[in-house]
């Protein structure tokens, strides 16, 4: 008999419905990833006991781990489905939606909170306009290089999924957001408004919510220096608070 792969998927018809599990038996293909398995189900939506079912819904876009769309829980770990190679996974493979975000359908979740938080901390360089003003500020390659590392954050949500303090009972914004503040506060132009961003991280949901579990960095698919970024921002906030105390 041809080699097959068993996949168990936690499914949910809509935000309001309750979840259920379905098992699929799929043909094995050399070098395939979890996305290829999900695509196979779409072409033939039948469960392992031969029952026709609806096609499984999930998010994906670039399929090369730079867009952050296809985050899900694979065998218990939050990660990108495109870079989860079947050969490297324990079988049967289980797929679940991220648990810290509302499920829309099956493996698709609503990560709007993440983008709203980026807005709260003003994660941008406030340029004055698109008129020609010559090149931006010079920057040492040394600084550019680590700032680039942080700027590769693809808002995938894995760090939030893994964080014990990111949950329904707290407004903690999560490591990705804090790292972005560090990025923009490092850029020579962004630095001019660094206080605004630090202010946004001083209140509820801010950096004080971190319990230093350090799970974020462990699960980050891009290996961003999240722990160091949180520590740096913590320090910057202490200085900022002290200055405010002294000079206000």
């Amino acid at each position, binding site marked *: 008999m041809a080699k097959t792969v068993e996949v168990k998927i936690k499914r949910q018809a*809509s935000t309001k419905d309750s979840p259920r599990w379905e098992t699929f038996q799929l043909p094995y293909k050399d070098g395939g990833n979890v996305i290829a398995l999900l695509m196979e189900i779409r072409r033939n939506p039948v469960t392992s006991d031969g029952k026709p079912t609806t096609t499984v819904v999930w998010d994906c876009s670039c399929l090369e781990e730079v*867009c952050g769309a296809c985050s899900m829980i694979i065998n218990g770990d939050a990660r990108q489905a495109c870079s989860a*190679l079947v050969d490297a996974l324990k079988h049967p493979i289980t797929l679940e939606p991220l648990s810290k975000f509302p499920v829309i359908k099956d493996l698709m979740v609503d990560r709007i909170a993440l983008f709203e938080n980026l807005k709260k901390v003003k994660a941008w360089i406030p340029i004055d306009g698109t008129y020609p003003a010559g090149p*931006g500020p010079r920057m040492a390659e040394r600084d550019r290089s680590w700032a680039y590392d942080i700027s590769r954050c693809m808002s995938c949500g894995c760090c939030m999924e893994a964080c014990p303090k990111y949950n329904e009972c707290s407004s903690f914004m999560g490591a990705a957001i804090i790292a972005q503040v560090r990025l923009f506060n490092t850029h020579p132009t962004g630095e001019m408004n660094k206080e605004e961003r630090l202010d946004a991280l001083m209140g509820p949901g801010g950096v004080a919510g971190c319990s230093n579990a350090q799970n974020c960095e462990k699960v980050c698919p891009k290996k961003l220096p999240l722990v160091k970024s949180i520590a740096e921002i913590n320090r910057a906030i202490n200085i900022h608070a002290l200055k405010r105390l002294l000079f206000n």
Partner: protein
Amino acid sequence: MAKSKFHAIIVGGGLAGLMAAIKIAEAGANVSLFSLVDAKRSHSVCAQGGVNAAVNTKGEGDSPWIHFQETIYGGDFLANQPPVKGMCEEGPNLIYLLDRMGVMFNRTPEGFLQVEMRGGGTKYSRGLFAGATTGQQMLYALDEQVRRFEASGLVNRYEGWEFISIVKDDQGVCRGITAMNLRGDATAQSFPADVVILATGGCGSLFGKATASHICNGSAASAVYQQGAIYANGEFIQVHPTAIPGDDKCRLISESLRGGGGRVWTYKEGKKWYFLEEWYPAYKNLVPRDVASRAIHKVCREMGLGIDGSDMVYLDVTHIPAADLDRLFGGALEIYEKFAGEDPRKVPMKVFPAVHYSMGGLWVDYEQRTNIPGLMAIGECDYQYHGANRLGANALLSCLYAGFISGPVAIRYANGLEKKSNELNPGIFASEAKRRQEINQKIMSPRGKENPFQIQSELSDWMWENVTVVRHNDKLKKTDEKLLELLDRFDRMDIADESVWANQSLSLARQLYNMIVLSRVITLGALNRNESRGVHYKPEFPKRDDENWLKTTKAQWSPGGPIFSYEDVDVSLFKPRERRYDKEFKEEK
């Protein structure tokens, strides 16, 4: 939302769409931004290599004028020249703007913008880059600026929404769109707008082997084509020579690796054979993509010299010190490691060609306006800047440029409207939404046993086999017959999901129809064009034929299939000459 004089809709949150959104919001007008995925997950993230602009950091004598000529030459003279000149001239300013927005472009030791030889078809260091994720970094910077306008109430995002059609008034003017929410109730709804800009990207994933994101299938462009917009040069589909095979998609191995010293070879009579270096001594491994893809095709398919008889050859960087590799190409190598499971620093990569880019797209004038008043097109979904073949690292520039110039044109147009769209009879919006919802309903109710994803697989296999690197008229004819068969089977589909909630199968099925229609434009356009030019290569007609074919293909929809007409190319600035890469290119003064 703050109130402004008019309201623009932009469909597409890639580089082009976001740039247009910034230009319009900056002028104080309201923008609604529609995108299938969160804008920052758009396909533009995939661009690894770099972006061209003749900044001449290294004092090599590069200039926008040379950049212009190389682009035209690389495109085998099929691009209208004035817009390309405009793009090359604006290049440095656009890069400076992105630099000011905080893109972490690599720097020289003094902290200036670093440049390197990145794309093929040039001998100048013209490529700027941000690590190995230039497109991602530029997309993020624009997305952040748009978020800023969102915070100030000027931009409203509809992320996770699918554009279905435009709404036209009695005069045939575009007055808005219909769309559906893929993260909720997927019922077709209408949205009025005074001007609509389509920035929906390319159509690479029509083809079985493609480097494009999953979502790049040309469906939106096909939808407006079916509503009367002209589609131009559809037959010009670029195949990238070096990709890693994959079942879900092919991953690109960036051209910058060849720019940085990577060598392509295969075994011949037991010895390493560097065929590009032998055949093209002037450019060697840096020949443009079409030339390299054809060479690999010839080596594998005609000479049977692919690795172990397969369609693959080696791309080798093992002679470059690992530290240099990591510094310059870390991201690209990481992709190979991650998806092929081998370390390219130690073993040569196995690569093969895959569809990469569509030079063709919606026909636009020099100000990005389609032939439908009120509808503009920008980015990879327009046809304007790359002629018959695109040079590496020029696409990102063309997206930025088209987005940049489209904003002011849209503003001028909308301000000049006699009647704003919200002053029109609301009936035109309701009836278009109703018509589209009826189609949705029809698709959702099972009418047979055909599976849409299966039809898509067949479509993409046929297109890949017959409408890519080497084209034969008999095979093109057969492909069109197959496409008609697929259209027929479309009517006997069961999409296996009848719920209206977040129905991705409905979305794919809708798109599938558009994909097949667009595939006919590409296939028949290729069948008609009896010459070889740029990426379009027919062994039966191996020469470029300027007398008959120095012309833009224009396809117009009709119920019986595309109707083709041809328009002269504007070659007013740089006289056509033979394009060859065995000798060095000399620019005109």
